């Protein structure tokens, strides 16, 4: 009888462990990059399999793009944007552990350390600030481990990443379902979600029902031009994020970050504030983001707004994006300064609006992969004074072949 009771107690304890571990593992389910939360309705395609006690998931996306841009600053280029993610998770005692690696081959598939994108700015190429171009992502986009553990009715989690995504901003655009059928970067990237590749990230958070509160410490410098290594760097920046999920298909977040010297060619620190709402249900995914960046070097605050959506109907994908962003780096710096020079003066800022409409058709669905062909077209509105630099009506069109794997 005693043996039977002991066996029953052990089984009950294990069941509780499994239940607790399941609750802990559910923390990972909606995380797509770092600890940022995507709506549960986002049908991110993933290949899942088991390896021992590990649940392994794989997915990724790659575009072969051909862009043609008109106007004085327009450029044509063929290049590939791509990334893939491998994630494994298992229970660990009453908690759960998750390992994630996200890799990109863009350093090899994008020439000249950038691809052309009108009005896009941020980071450097060959020692100069990138203007009208987007930098490739680092080979190591994320290498992270996360442990989640029940704390009463809540779940606490700790995220450690030599390369990772701190608790700042919405789900980064490469990983948002609403953005995934538009291969080019968002113009607001460096106001909203550019910290998705940061170094030495430590995030601790608590999730209780519909609310998650988390804080991060990390190195605030943007990646350098060597896209193949892990830059590292002293932990010198911090952020915090409050995420609210009133229903599983709707996620809202507000976040704030203090970034120590984020830019290579710009002295001073930056503050970033973001708020976003994402909704995904069935074939529809919608995201709206507001991002504000304060730059200490010029004592200036810049605003950005983004709205985007994707609609998946059978083999068709319709994607749209609208942005309204203030740009302060559309011209090369005269000289760079390693320190802030006082008194500080504002630099000219230009408000740029861009609207993109795209369509992708999946011409082949085979095994765990989807192959599509698509195009998108972008219109711009900008201050009159920039017409002499950009032309009267610059346009950008993108033709692409896309594959998603892990269906």
């Amino acid at each position, binding site marked *: 009888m005693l043996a039977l009771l002991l066996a029953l107690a052990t089984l009950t304890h294990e069941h509780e462990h499994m239940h607790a571990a399941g609750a802990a593992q559910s923390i990972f389910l909606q995380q797509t990059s770092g600890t940022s939360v995507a709506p549960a309705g986002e049908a991110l395609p993933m290949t899942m399999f088991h390896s021992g006690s590990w649940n392994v998931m794989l997915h990724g996306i790659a575009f072969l793009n051909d862009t043609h841009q008109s106007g004085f600053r327009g450029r044509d280029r063929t290049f590939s944007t791509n990334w893939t993610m491998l994630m494994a998770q298992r229970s660990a005692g009453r908690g759960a552990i998750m390992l994630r690696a996200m890799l990109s081959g863009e350093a090899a598939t994008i020439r000249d350390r950038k691809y052309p994108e009108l009005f896009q700015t941020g980071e450097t190429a060959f020692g100069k600030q990138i203007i009208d171009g987007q930098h490739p992502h680092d080979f190591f986009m994320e290498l992270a481990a996360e442990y989640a553990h029940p704390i009463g009715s809540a779940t606490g989690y700790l995220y450690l990443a030599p390369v990772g995504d701190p608790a700042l901003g919405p789900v980064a655009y490469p990983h948002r379902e609403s953005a995934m059928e538009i291969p080019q970067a968002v113009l607001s990237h460096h106001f909203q979600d550019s910290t998705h590749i940061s170094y030495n990230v430590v995030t601790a958070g608590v999730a209780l029902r519909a609310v998650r509160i988390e804080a991060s410490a990390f190195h605030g410098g943007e990646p350098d031009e060597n896209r193949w290594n892990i830059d590292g760097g002293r932990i010198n920046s911090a952020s915090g994020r409050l995420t609210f999920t009133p229903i599983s298909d709707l996620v809202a977040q507000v976040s704030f970050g203090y970034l120590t010297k984020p830019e290579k060619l710009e002295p001073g620190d930056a503050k970033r504030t973001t708020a976003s709402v994402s909704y995904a249900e069935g074939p529809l995914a919608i995201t709206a983001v507001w991002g504000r960046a304060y730059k200490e070097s010029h004592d200036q605050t810049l605003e950005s707004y983004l709205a985007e959506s994707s609609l998946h109907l059978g083999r068709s994908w319709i994607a749209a994006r609208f942005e309204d962003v203030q740009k302060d780096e559309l011209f*090369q710096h*005269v*000289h*760079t300064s390693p320190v802030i020079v006082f008194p500080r003066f504002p630099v000219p800022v*230009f408000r740029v609006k861009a609207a993109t409409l795209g369509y992708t058709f999946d011409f082949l669905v085979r095994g765990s992969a989807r192959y599509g062909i698509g195009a998108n077209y972008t219109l711009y509105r900008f201050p009159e004074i920039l*017409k*002499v630099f950009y032309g009267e009506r610059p346009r950008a069109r993108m033709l692409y072949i896309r594959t998603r794997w892990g269906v």
Partner: protein
Amino acid sequence: MRHLLTLISFALAATAFADHIPIDVSLQMSGPAMAPAGSDITYTITLTTLFPGAAYAVTDTLPANARFASAGAPLWNCLQSRGKVTCGNERLSGGSSNIQVVVTAPDTPQVITNTAHVDSVSVFDPYPANNDDSANTLIYDPAICGANSIKALVPPPHGTAAAPHVTFQWSAVARAIRYEFYAGQGSAMLTLVALTAETQIVRDFVPGEVQWYVVAILPDCPPVATAPQTVLVQAQLPRGRAARH
């Protein structure tokens, strides 16, 4: 000493880190004061900046009723749209840079105004008050104004006159509002000596050679001038000696 060091360090910082200090740019516009109706008029916009490398956009609001003909300058990219010419330069070298804008004048007499403005688009401009300038041009009818002429009458060309009171006379010009009398003696430059509404004037000169000319100022035509004249002013002999001779 401490103030001197502060000044030196600020100057060094200003030189080395120009992106983080203001760079003043100034604009000046020049053009003809008068031009015949229907003719091409060239305006020159001059930008001056101390530091090289900054980007600028110049907007020239063309005169109403004038037609755009051309615009440009080396290293400047210019666009014309809806009565405005915009020129951009992404890395202006230090010193001065000129942009020439050519318009075709209207066909009827009037005063036209050309206005230009410069925007610093890459660095802060601390003194925007010197970023604007304009030029007025009187457009005249060459058929009307071409008939205007003025001739020197007295003293006759290469004639003589007795010192000291010399009388100068010229022909009247219809609708002239005034005459400007310019004169100089010896090697002196000719200067404005008098303004008059009459067609003659008396001025005192010592013996010697005198150069002179007259300009007639008209309300809606270019000024017309006599050809430069020379008169030899001679000493007047005493009346008694003259009688003995």
